[in-house]
C-alpha cells in the first residue's frame, strides 16, 4: 500500500488518475480505515487530502452561501454558530454521525463519497440544494449532491476526480431545514430511514420546499411530489398527510437485517411529517 500526502488537489487528482489498483482518498478515514481493518477494501494507493491548504476551512461567502472544505469535520461544523443558524438541518445531520471520537474525524465529503444509501448528511445536503466542487483530470466542475450517489458504494465521480469542497446555497429570509433519522437505539447506529426537509416561508405559507429521503432506496432520493405537497400550504394536516403519502410512495426499500420494507415505508412518512414541522418552525424563527 502506498500512502500519499499531496499538497494540492491537482496532485491528488493526478495520483488517483495515474493509479491502477484500488484507490481511496483519505479524509477522516472513518469509513476507509474501518473497511481496511475488516478486510473489505484494501487500497493500493491511499491519498490523504488533509495536507492540502484550505481543506479545513468553513467559509461564509458574500452572497450568503457557504463553502465547506473537504476535510472539515462534524465537530468543526457544530462549533460554527453562524453555519448552525443558516443550515441547522445539515449541521444536525452531520452531528448524528458516530460518537465524539468519530465527530473529530468524519467529513461531509467522505460521507457522500463513501456512497452509503444510509449516509446521514446526504439527504440533508440534497434538501439544502448543496453542490460539490470537483477537480479531475479534465479540470474542475460543480455537481449537485443529489447527482453524486449512483448506487450503493457508487458515485458519479470519474477516475481521478476528487471533491474539494461542499457548497451550500444562501439560506435567504424565512428559510429552515431539518433532518431526522430512525435508528433502533439512541446513537451509534445506521439510519433505517432518514428524512430531510428544507423549506422557505412567506408568513405562514410555504413558498419553496425540498424533501429528501435516505436509506429507503439504492441512493438518497429527492422527492419532488413531497415538496409539491408542502408548497403553497401552511403545513396544515392535509398537507402533512399528502407529504407522508408522497414520501411513502417514493420509497423503494429492501427487507434486511435493519428493517422491513413495510416498516421503512411507513416510518419514511412519519419522519417526513416530523421533519417538516421542525423545518417550518425554524423557518418561522423558532429556535
Amino acid at each position, binding site marked *: 500500500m502506498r500512502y500519499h500526502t499531496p499538497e494540492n488537489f491537482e496532485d491528488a487528482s493526478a495520483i488517483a488518475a495515474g493509479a491502477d489498483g484500488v484507490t481511496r482518498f483519505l479524509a477522516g478515514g472513518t469509513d476507509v480505515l474501518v473497511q481496511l481493518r*475488516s*478486510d473489505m477494501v484494501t487500497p493500493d494507493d491511499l491519498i490523504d487530502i488533509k495536507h492540502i491548504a484550505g481543506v479545513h476551512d468553513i467559509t461564509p461567502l458574500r452572497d450568503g452561501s457557504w463553502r465547506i472544505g473537504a476535510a472539515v469535520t462534524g465537530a468543526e461544523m457544530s462549533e460554527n454558530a453562524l453555519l448552525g443558524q443558516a443550515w441547522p438541518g445539515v449541521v444536525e445531520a452531520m452531528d448524528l454521525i458516530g460518537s465524539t471520537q468519530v465527530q473529530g474525524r468524519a467529513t461531509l465529503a467522505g460521507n457522500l463519497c463513501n456512497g452509503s444509501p444510509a449516509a446521514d448528511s446526504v439527504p440533508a445536503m440534497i434538501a439544502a440544494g448543496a453542490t460539490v466542487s470537483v477537480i479531475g483530470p479534465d479540470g474542475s466542475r460543480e455537481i449537485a449532491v443529489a447527482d453524486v450517489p449512483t448506487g450503493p458504494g457508487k458515485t458519479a465521480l470519474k477516475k481521478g476526480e476528487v471533491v474539494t469542497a461542499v457548497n451550500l446555497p444562501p439560506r435567504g429570509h424565512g428559510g429552515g431545514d431539518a433532518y431526522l433519522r*430512525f435508528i*433502533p*437505539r*439512541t*446513537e*451509534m*447506529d*445506521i439510519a*433505517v430511514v432518514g428524512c430531510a426537509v428544507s423549506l422557505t416561508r412567506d408568513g405562514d405559507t410555504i413558498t419553496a420546499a425540498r424533501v429528501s429521503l435516505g436509506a429507503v432506496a439504492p441512493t438518497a432520493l429527492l422527492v419532488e411530489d413531497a415538496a409539491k405537497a408542502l408548497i403553497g400550504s401552511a403545513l396544515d394536516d392535509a398537507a402533512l398527510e399528502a407529504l407522508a403519502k408522497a414520501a411513502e410512495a417514493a420509497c423503494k426499500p429492501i427487507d*434486511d*437485517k*435493519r*428493517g*422491513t420494507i*413495510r*416498516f421503512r415505508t*411507513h*416510518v419514511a412518512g*412519519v419522519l417526513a411529517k416530523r421533519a417538516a414541522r421542525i423545518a417550518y418552525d425554524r423557518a418561522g424563527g423558532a429556535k
Partner: protein
Amino acid sequence: MAFDETKTEGFKVVGTRPNRPDGIDKVTGRARFGADATAPGMLHGVIVRSPHAHARILKIDTSEAEAMKGVHAVVTRADFATGLTGENWNILENVMAGETALYDGHAVVAIAATSSLAARDAAKAIVVDYEVLPHVTDVDKAMAEGAPVIREGAADKSVPAGLHPNVVRYHESGHGDVETGFAEADLVIEDSFRTEATHQGYIEPHACLAQLGNDGRGEIWCCTQGHWNVQKVCAALLGIETSKLRVTASEIGGGFGGKTAVFIEPVALALSLKANRPVKIVMTRSECFRATGPTSSTSMDVKIGMKKDGTITAAKGVFRLQGGAFPGAPMEFTAMCAFAPYNLANVSQIGFDVMSNRPKQAAYRAPGSPMAAFAVESVIDELCEQLGLDRIETRLKNASKEGTKASFGPTWDRIGLVECLEAAKAHPHYTAPLKPGQGRGISCGFWFNHGGETAVQMALSEDGTVQLSVGTPDIGGSRASMAQMAAEELGIPYENVRTTIADTATLGYNEISHGSRVTYASGLATIEAARDTIRKLCKRAAAKWGIDEEAVSWVDGCAVPSGPNAGDFDPLPIARIAKSMGRTGGPIVGHYEATPEGAGVSFATHIVDAEVDPETGSTRVVRYTVVQDAGKAIHPTYVEGQYQGGAAQGIGWALNEEYIYGADGRLQNAGFLDYRIPVASDLPMIDTVIVEVPNPGHPYGVRGVGETSICPPLAAIANAVSAAAGVRLHELPMSPPRILAALEKQAAG
C-alpha cells in the same frame, strides 16, 4: 459451614464500600488482559472458519499458505487427540471441525505466522473445498419432520421415541395434576412465546498465549472464567497429562458465562507444538459472534389457570431450546426456573434440547432462566389484567416461601421472594404516575446459585499483612469482597489484604467463576482460611505465653488471653506474631478446600416503565428498579453493579439484541453495528434495592447475586411495553418493526 447468627452484626469491613484493588490498574491501562501477553519468538495464530452453515469438508489445501513468508505451522483436526468421548469430544469437535462444518464460523484449519498480518494473509491463501449440505437454524424447524439431521445418534436416553434426531435431551418435572388444576380455575390462559439467541457481548474478545514443547510441558495465559477448566480440557484435547500444563488467568474484560467455555487455547497449543514457538491467538469481534457461545433461542408454550382471587390453580410449560450444533441447551434450567417463584399445587414442565446449525450455545448469566420468566410472567400479567388484579398482590398471594414445595421438587429453605415483592410494593416507583404512552411492567425471577470445588490459601507476610490467593477469576469485583471478608475475620484493615487470582500450579482445583458462586464459595473458603490462619496465630501466642492454645482468643487483629483464668498478657498484634514467625515455627499459612453445597437461591422483582412511540414502534425504558435478595451484601456497590448490569443486559435482550440468520444460514450481524447492545444513552439510571434475607449456608449469609439480576428483565420489559403499546408482545426482541407490526395487526382487528 452454616450461617453464623452471631456474625451478622457489628461488621466493621463487610458492608462498606472500599475501592476495588484492581481499579487503578484498570483505569490507567496497567491491567494485563488476554491480548496483552507477549513472549520471545511469539507467533500469531489465525483460524480459518467455515462460511457455510452445514458442509462436508472435502479437502483442505494449505500448500500455498505454507509456502508464504513467515508461516510456521498449520493445524487441522488431525493434530488433536483421538478417541475422545462425551463432552470432551463435543468440545474438540467445536474447537476444530472434523469431517463436517456444522455452522457458519466453525473452525476448520488454523495457521501461525510471525505477524498477525502475515497470518491473516496466509489464512486467505488456504483453500477449503466444501460440499454444502442442507441446514436448519430455527428451533421449531429443527425439530420438525424432514429437518436436516445435524448428527445422527446424538440423542441421549432421556428422549422419548418418535422425536426428530435433533432433539437430543428431554426433561420433565412437576407435581400434582395440572388438568384437575385447570378445571378449578376461573380463567385459563395459554400462549406461545419466542426469544432469539443473544450474545454475552463481553468487551474483551477471547485471547490467549500458549506454549507447548516437545517434552509435553506447556503454559497458557488466557482470559477465562475458569483456568483449571482450561487446563483440564486442553490437556484432554491435546492428549497430555493435566499437570503438564500451567494456566494463568489474565484480567478479564467481561465474561457473563461466555468465558466458561474453551475455544482457542487448544488451537494455540497445537500450533505451538508444531512450530516449537509460543503462539498467540486473539479473536476478532466477528469471530466472537460467529463461533463463541450465544444463548439458546427458544420457543415456549405456557398455560396457567387462576381463580378470581388470584390463586394460581395450575401451571404448565413446554420449553424448546436450540443450543447450536451440540447437545447442552440448558432447557432443564428453563423448565426448573419457570415456575420457581410460585407455590403451586399442580405444575408440569417439559424441556427439549434441540440441535441446529448454529454455534454451540454457552452459558449466559442464569442460563435458560430469563426466557422462562418472559413466558411465565407474561401470562401471569395477562391473567392479572383480565381478572382486574394487582400484579404484586397476586404474586405475593402465590409466592414461594420457606417450607413450600418448589416447582422442581425440593422444599424451600429460607428464601427472600416475599421480602422482594414487599420491598417492590413499598418502593415509590410502583405507584408513581405514568405519562401518556408509557406502561409499567413487573416480573419476578429466580436463579439457583452454585457452590462448587473451591480452594483458597492465605499467607501471612512478616509485617502482618496478608496475601490471599483464590482460584476464581474476578469477573465482578470479587477481589474486593474477598479482601473484605479476610479483613473482617482477621480484624485488620482492608488495605492490608492483597487478593490474587492464583494460577493452576498454586492451588487445588477451583471450579469456574460461574453459577454466581464466587462471593459465596470463595468467600466462604476465605473466611475458613482466615479462621485457620487465626488458629495458627493463636498457637504462636499460646507458645509465647506458655498457656494452652484453647486459652487464646483472637480479637481485633490481636491474640488475647480468653479470660482472666488464662493469665494476664498484653494483646499480641498480628504484626508482632508475623515478625517473629520465622523463629517461632516458620511461615504462617491458612488454607481451606471444600465443595460447599449451601449456595442459597436468589429471587428478584423488577419494576420497569417503558414508553412506546406508536408511529414508529420505538421503545425507551424510562425508569427501572431492581429489587433483589443478596443474602448479605459484602460490598454493596458491587452488588448494585451486578443488579444494574443484569438489568442493562436484559434491556438489550428484550429490545434489540438478536442473532439474525439469512436464508443461507449465515449470521448476518456479526458485529456491534448490527448486533445492538444498548449504548449508555439507551439506558435510564437503574435504581437498586438490596434485600438481605441471610443464606443459611454461608457464615455471613451471602447469596450469589450475579445471575438472578438478568432473570426478570425480559418479562418485566415485555409487560411494560405491552402495557404502553396496548398490545401483547410474544416475541423477543421487541424491535421497532415487530412492535409496529403488532400495532398494525391489532388495528386491522
